[in-house]
């Protein structure tokens, strides 16, 4: 990971001209991109590879983002002024042009109404990409990242697609540096901190090999749902009995905002008063907007979480301010 | 002892007048048969008597308005053998006949040993004892008809209505069932109102006939008064001869329109 950004810098310096597009794999890739076109001028460019490859003729000036994470990424790499419309959940940054467009049930005509020259989406229900292709609009598919490398790759692809390659590389480099610094500052642990990350009131949770599970893993934490994770694609529904018996060190609520769950409610659940995390009030409410996205703010997520854990005396950490 | 009176009864169904102003009197212990072409309203009249359809006019029992009776009280007085009775799945003959005791069992109650005794008695009378444990769905047409009759008798009602009880039976069974009903009528002093298809059979068993045509009572009286050649031709549109036979009584005989008998090759008589 430390080498990827160095490679990116070198690639920039080598500045391969011509039509070579950024050679990223499809969204499921586990390896980072290796080559980039020349800094700001290599258009037309092909982003992605195989069936996900998208050809972009010119630097897009009217981008429609149907993915809140993509919106954050676009603004972070300096392509924000090219974004003319963002979906209804694109709440960050504030200056993002949020509209009524839906990222889950996109309406082609509504999107076309913004006269886009590039659309970025995280899911394709019902031939969004092919319908847009018929009207000459390229769609870049960036589904939810499975690993941190996916995040970096998506940022880089957006950089290539919008002609902000240098800024994208810088963002990625900064993220990696920040995360490395954070991880390095944490003391070694023999036994990982166990956690229960609650997705909703019916006890859906995450296992350690999901994206957010990997983020937790960076802080030396392990999910109690790992036993159940393998068979449920990483998002199992846990039995409350099991949660109580597993007695996680900390409880993280990702349903605090959407469903109004707070520490008091958790404590009132039948049998939950037995949990040491409840008794010691080690319940953290997460900002779902940050916790459910895989953009540049994962750094903020990690730093805030580390600070919260330190405040609960679960972690030795001092925020570098 | 129960005289059934039907007084100016009319029934409207789905906007159509099915019965108009029918008045009829059935003396206690007598057998009155309703006859008439299809769609005349025979079944409707029987249903009006049991309270299954709404009607104007008055249906009286010994002078009392039957409409004022409660459900169960009415069922203790009037029992009906329907035209196409339902054969419930998985029910034994005994349980089926036991249903006839429903008017005597309280809403949330259960049958008593007295009820059981009545059923046993009725089954014996109708020679169904051996079939008591069999499922009603496994009975033949004739056997099931006896079971339905048994159920009606278990109601111990003085008035018995029969709606085409013989339509699915063969000649032998028709006689069997009707002789049985007549015997029961005598033994138990039942008042019988039957709707019958066949005019000869109707004549053989009834004290009086009531001829219904398109919802109106067109003729009423003794069989020989009602079943005349002219009346039948007018109301049924059929050519007949009405013959009196010393053994069979009144016989209504259809005659072919062209006067022929038999098929090609047979001689034309007369």
């Amino acid at each position, binding site marked *: 990971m430390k080498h990827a950004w160095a490679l990116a810098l070198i690639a920039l310096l080598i500045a391969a001209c011509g039509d070579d597009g950024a050679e990223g794999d499809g969204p499921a890739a586990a390896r980072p991109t290796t080559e980039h076109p020349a800094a700001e001028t290599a258009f037309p460019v092909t982003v992605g590879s195989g069936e996900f490859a998208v050809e972009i003729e010119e630097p897009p000036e009217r981008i429609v983002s149907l993915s809140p994470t993509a919106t954050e990424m676009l603004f972070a790499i300096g392509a924000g002024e090219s974004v003319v419309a963002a979906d209804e959940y694109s709440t960050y940054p504030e200056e993002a042009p949020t509209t009524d467009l839906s990222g889950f049930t996109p309406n082609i005509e509504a999107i076309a109404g913004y006269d886009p020259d590039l659309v970025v989406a995280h899911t394709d229900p019902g031939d969004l990409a092919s319908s847009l292709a018929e009207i000459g609009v390229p769609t870049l598919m960036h589904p939810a990242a499975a690993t941190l490398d996916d995040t970096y790759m998506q940022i880089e692809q957006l950089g290539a697609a919008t002609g902000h390659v240098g800024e994208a590389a810088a963002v990625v480099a900064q993220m990696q540096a920040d995360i490395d610094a954070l991880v390095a500052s944490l003391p070694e642990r023999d036994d990982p901190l166990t956690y229960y990350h609650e997705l909703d009131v019916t006890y859906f949770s995450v296992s350690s090999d999901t994206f957010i599970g990997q983020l937790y893993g960076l802080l030396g934490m392990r999910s109690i749902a790992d036993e159940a994770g393998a068979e449920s694609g990483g998002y199992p*529904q846990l039995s409350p009995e099991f949660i109580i018996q597993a007695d996680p060190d900390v409880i993280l609520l990702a349903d605090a905002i959407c469903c109004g769950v707070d520490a008091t409610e958790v404590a009132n659940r039948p049998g939950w008063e037995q949990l040491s995390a409840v008794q010691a009030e080690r319940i953290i409410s997460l900002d779902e907007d940050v916790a459910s996205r895989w953009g540049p703010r994962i750094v903020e997520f990690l730093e805030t979480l580390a600070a919260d854990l330190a405040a609960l005396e679960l972690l030795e950490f001092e925020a570098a301010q | 002892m129960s005289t059934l009176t039907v007084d100016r009864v009319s029934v409207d169904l789905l906007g159509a007048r099915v019965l108009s102003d029918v008045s009829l009197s059935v003396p206690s212990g007598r057998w009155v048969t309703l006859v008439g072409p299809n769609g005349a309203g025979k079944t409707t009249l029987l249903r009006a008597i049991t309270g299954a359809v709404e009607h104007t006019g008055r249906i009286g029992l010994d002078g009392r308005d039957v409409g004022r009776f409660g459900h169960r009280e009415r069922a203790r007085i009037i029992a009906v053998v329907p035209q196409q009775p339902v054969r*419930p799945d*998985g029910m034994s003959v005994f349980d089926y006949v036991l249903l006839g005791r429903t008017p005597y069992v309280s809403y949330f109650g259960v049958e008593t040993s007295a009820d059981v005794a009545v059923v046993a008695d009725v089954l014996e009378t109708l020679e169904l004892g051996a079939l008591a444990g069999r499922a009603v769905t496994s009975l033949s047409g004739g056997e099931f008809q006896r079971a339905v009759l048994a159920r009606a008798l278990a109601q111990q009602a003085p008035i018995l209505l029969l709606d085409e009880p013989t339509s699915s039976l063969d000649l032998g069974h028709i006689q069997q069932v009707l002789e049985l009903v007549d015997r029961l009528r005598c033994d138990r002093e039942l008042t019988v109102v039957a709707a019958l298809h066949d005019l000869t059979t109707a004549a053989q068993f009834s004290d009086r006939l009531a001829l219904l045509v398109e919802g109106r009572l067109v003729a009423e009286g003794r069989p020989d008064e009602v079943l005349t050649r002219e009346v039948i031709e007018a109301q049924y549109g059929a050519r007949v001869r009405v013959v009196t036979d010393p053994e069979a009584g009144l016989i209504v005989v259809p005659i072919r329109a062209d006067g022929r008998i038999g098929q090609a090759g047979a001689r034309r008589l007369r």
Partner: protein
Amino acid sequence: MADAVTIHAKKRLRWLLVAGGLLVASVLAGLVIGPAALPWRGVVVEVVNLLPGMELAGGLDERGQAILWQLRAPRVVLAVMVGGMLAVAGAGYQGVFRNPLADPYLLGVAAGAGLGATLAIVSGGGRGVLPVAAFVGGTAAVAATYALGRSAGGRSTHSLILAGVAVAAFLVAVQTYVQQRHADTLREVYGWILGRLLTGGWGDVAGIAPYVVVAAIAILAHRRLLDVLSVGSAEAGAMGVPSTRVRLVVVLAATLGTAAAVSVAGLIGFVGIVVPHLVRMMAGTSYRIVLPVSILVGAVFLVWADLLARMLVSPGELPVGVVTAFVGAPFFTLVLRRARRAW
């Protein structure tokens, strides 16, 4: 022959005892088995200690007790109540409509409760709102069905069933629309629709107990009358049964009880059809046996279904409605084939 009624009574008692014994065993199994591996001896000791005067040693620690009495026990009790209610409601509907495919959701309860639950979830109402909304939705749907059926075809059951289909279709359409507009709550809504007993506590049990008990008793009280109704409402009426009133009361009781059950447990399917059929196949078609035995067998069925739901992918959970569907669908095929041979 004169003993036929007594023979029925004896047979009934036998089946009740067998089913009752099965229920006790199933409840014990439900208490002993679970994703938090509690020692079975400890569980048995805790259960025995409930009896007045018993004070055996060797029970569970505090956490084990909390798991047993605050999580498992209410869950098992809820399974008993919901399973028994759905089964007897299904049998009641089958008796009223004289149709073996009638189930407790026939007149739109499921669609109405589903819509109520969806609205409660997307509007972000608290946990307490959900059961109430589901209950109101379910009963309102059936009321609408009844009104529509009456205005269309009078007393006919056919018109009622068709009205139920129409109302259900409409409500499902509305629900789908609402869900689409709030796609982020999809998982929670579907979780409810597929049925689950895991979030129930004693509060849920106490909440639905009065409805379920009253409804079950009301249906049971009409068992003889449902037997009489099996010859059709016209013939039953001629024998003194107020058919329309009986059908109305049974449907009302079955609907209320079902609405209460699904309000906390979600839409658990197949219990209302599978269980009464199973009981009929084994014990005969008289409602005097089918109704009471269905309550017990329905309870057993759901206790085991819930056991499987929490053990099959332990420590993960399966929605219990998925388990009942997996068992119910093949069973359904069996019933259909048997019925076809009889035709």
